[in-house]
């Protein structure tokens, strides 16, 4: 099997596959090929964005938000525990939008800033251009977890003003195990993996040529069909959100029409536990998620919902419906048919 870093013919052909994928990925994201660092997925990209910039800048304060994915929050907190980082987590409003003034105020002198484009639990869309401009003004490099944005919103790396940006293939219908950190040429990144010096010397390890090609194809397809799909999915999501509101009047429902991302419908259902609703929906053939992180299957209280002002109990009472290219009207019908019974049983079962 040719190694894309090898100089012989087979290696060159592999290298060509990787480089062509890199060019396609760059084009789809408004970046240059030299700015695409291929790696294993969103988690690694976020870790490289946070830890790589922190070490590359020689340490200091990390400015982020209270609703970040654990792939950003945990590296930041880990640096605070094991090194001398301090972490500022900007609060968010009840709808999940970061407090831009708090974020801006914390920036001067920081090592790096980091904010997600679209929240993975509730679908809140952050004002990334505004945050990136504030960071630029303060001279602070800014990372963005764009895993949930690409394919659903228009994402243009050069337009965004970001320093680095995390992208994952499998959220776009590509394979698990491949992703990219898009990084400006001048991004002060320290490597996490040392070795052969691949990928601008910040990500050693043989590049997965097949994964890169599949990532490029999935990304191109997601971006190409985005507008048509986004409208179709948003219509499904709106019908789902309306149906949930009608069936469960006291549920707090968040969806595209309320300013959230088009592919997520999120409902907080007071008095019903996430795990019971998830199990009952599953038994009806409808896959929903609790929305929050799991450790070996345990639904944790959502730090996102708590940051948005929900109580500890409500933060364990959410279900998230994710819609995608394969979602249909029939899926929405099935979800709406199963939900009322699931909720009433889950409520009877208590928290």
């Amino acid at each position, binding site marked *: 099997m040719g190694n894309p870093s090898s100089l012989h013919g087979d290696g060159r052909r592999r290298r060509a596959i990787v480089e062509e994928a890199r060019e396609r990925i760059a084009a789809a994201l408004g970046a240059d090929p030299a700015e695409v660092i291929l790696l294993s997925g969103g988690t690694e990209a976020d870790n490289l964005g946070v830890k790589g910039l922190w070490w590359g800048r020689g340490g200091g304060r990390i400015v982020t938000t209270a609703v970040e994915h654990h792939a950003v929050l945990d590296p930041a907190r880990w640096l605070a525990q094991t090194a001398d980082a301090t972490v500022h987590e900007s609060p968010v409003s009840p709808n999940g939008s970061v407090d831009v003034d708090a974020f801006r105020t914390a920036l001067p002198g920081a090592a790096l800033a980091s904010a997600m484009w679209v929240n993975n639990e509730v679908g809140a869309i952050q004002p990334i251009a505004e945050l990136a401009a504030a960071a630029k003004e303060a001279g602070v490099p800014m990372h963005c977890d764009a895993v949930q944005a690409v394919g659903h919103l228009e994402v243009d790396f050069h337009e965004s003003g970001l320093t680095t940006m995390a992208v994952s293939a499998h959220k776009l219908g590509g394979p698990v195990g491949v992703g990219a950190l898009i990084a400006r040429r001048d991004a002060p990144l320290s490597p996490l993996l040392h070795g052969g010096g691949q990928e601008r010397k910040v990500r050693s390890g043989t590049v997965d040529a097949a994964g890169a090609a599949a990532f490029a194809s999935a990304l191109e397809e997601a971006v190409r069909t985005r507008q048509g799909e986004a409208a179709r999915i948003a219509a499904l999501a709106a019908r789902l959100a309306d149906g949930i509101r009608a069936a469960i009047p006291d549920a707090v429902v968040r969806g595209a029409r309320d300013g959230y991302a088009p592919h997520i419908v999120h409902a907080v259902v007071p008095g019903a536990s996430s795990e019971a609703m998830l*199990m009952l929906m599953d038994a009806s053939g409808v896959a929903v998620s609790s929305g929050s992180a799991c450790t070996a299957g*345990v639904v944790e209280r959502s730090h996102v919902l708590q940051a948005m002002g929900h109580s500890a109990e409500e933060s364990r009472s959410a279900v998230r419906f994710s819609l995608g290219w394969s979602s249909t009207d029939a899926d929405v019908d099935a979800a709406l048919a199963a939900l009322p019974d699931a909720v009433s*049983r889950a409520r009877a079962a208590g928290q």
Partner: protein
Amino acid sequence: MRVLAALSGGVDSAVAAARAVDAGHEVTGVHMALSRNRDLHRNGSRGCCSIEDANDARRAADKLGIPYYVWDLSDEFHDTVVADFLSEYEAGRTPNPCVRCNEHIKFDTLLERASALGFDAVVTGHYARIDIRDDGVRELHRAADAAKDQSYVLAVMGPEKLARAMFPLGTTTSKSEVRSEAAARGLGVSNKPDSYDICFVADGDTKGFLERALGERPGEIVDQDGAVVGAHSGAYSYTVGQRKGLGLGNPAADGRPRYVTGVDTARNVVTVGPETLLSVSTLVGEKAVWLAPDVTADAPVECHAQVRAHGEPVPGRVTREGDRIVVELDAPIRGVAAGQSLVVYSGSRVLGQATLVR
């Protein structure tokens, strides 16, 4: 029936679930996460709660082809079983946390939640037998394997819960039968060690656990005449009948071993004395649960009483007095501590259960 199988990650619950599948039930597996800070790996002889155990449970469910979920009951477990364990010791009594777990978690929180979610029964890997008579009465019996019998810790569930419980291992004649059945079914847990320690007490160090939770409270150990014979770091960690770990410097005048005969946590005093002071010929239990509707016990009924999980059943006569159970023993026994569970049997059948007051 639609049944919910509690999967601890051990071999017993996995085989119990497998037998429920074989019996034609629609089985869903649930692992109860009971610890707030779960260890990554199994540790010593504790039987549950690590993430490794949860993964073992998941793999068993995979093998059986049943859905699998984790329910976080750590708050309920902490607020009932662990809190009760601490407050009982703090009050000078000797609790059995496995009894409390069956009472509050497995056959209350889990069972009631399962019922509300549409399940007809809960399946566990306990060793006890349920006989359904022609007249519909359900009898709880000791397991076929006396060494593994767990009827003692199950009696607390009462008749109404018993109707919604299934113990597929009750007829099993030995644990090795369960292990070989697990191996034959391809269940990876077939060789997993048995658990016997209290699951939330690390290293089986109950005294250390109590001291960390309740703080050291140094006090005196006195003999039956009130003379100070030693010191302790907290009366709560002593149990009536205890002989080891008293740390008494000088032997008793008669040279005989001394036992804890009284624990007074209000005064923080531990009393010790000779074995003869431990003799009890009447057992009185409160908060009685009666599992034999056909046995009124208004007048004394022949029985065997058991006061410890692996204790010897002793003969006597039981009378029910409302919320109380009184057993007059044929011969006195020693080492009976308030707080322990009293279970009364007729042959292999459980008649009732109560918490000992003296």
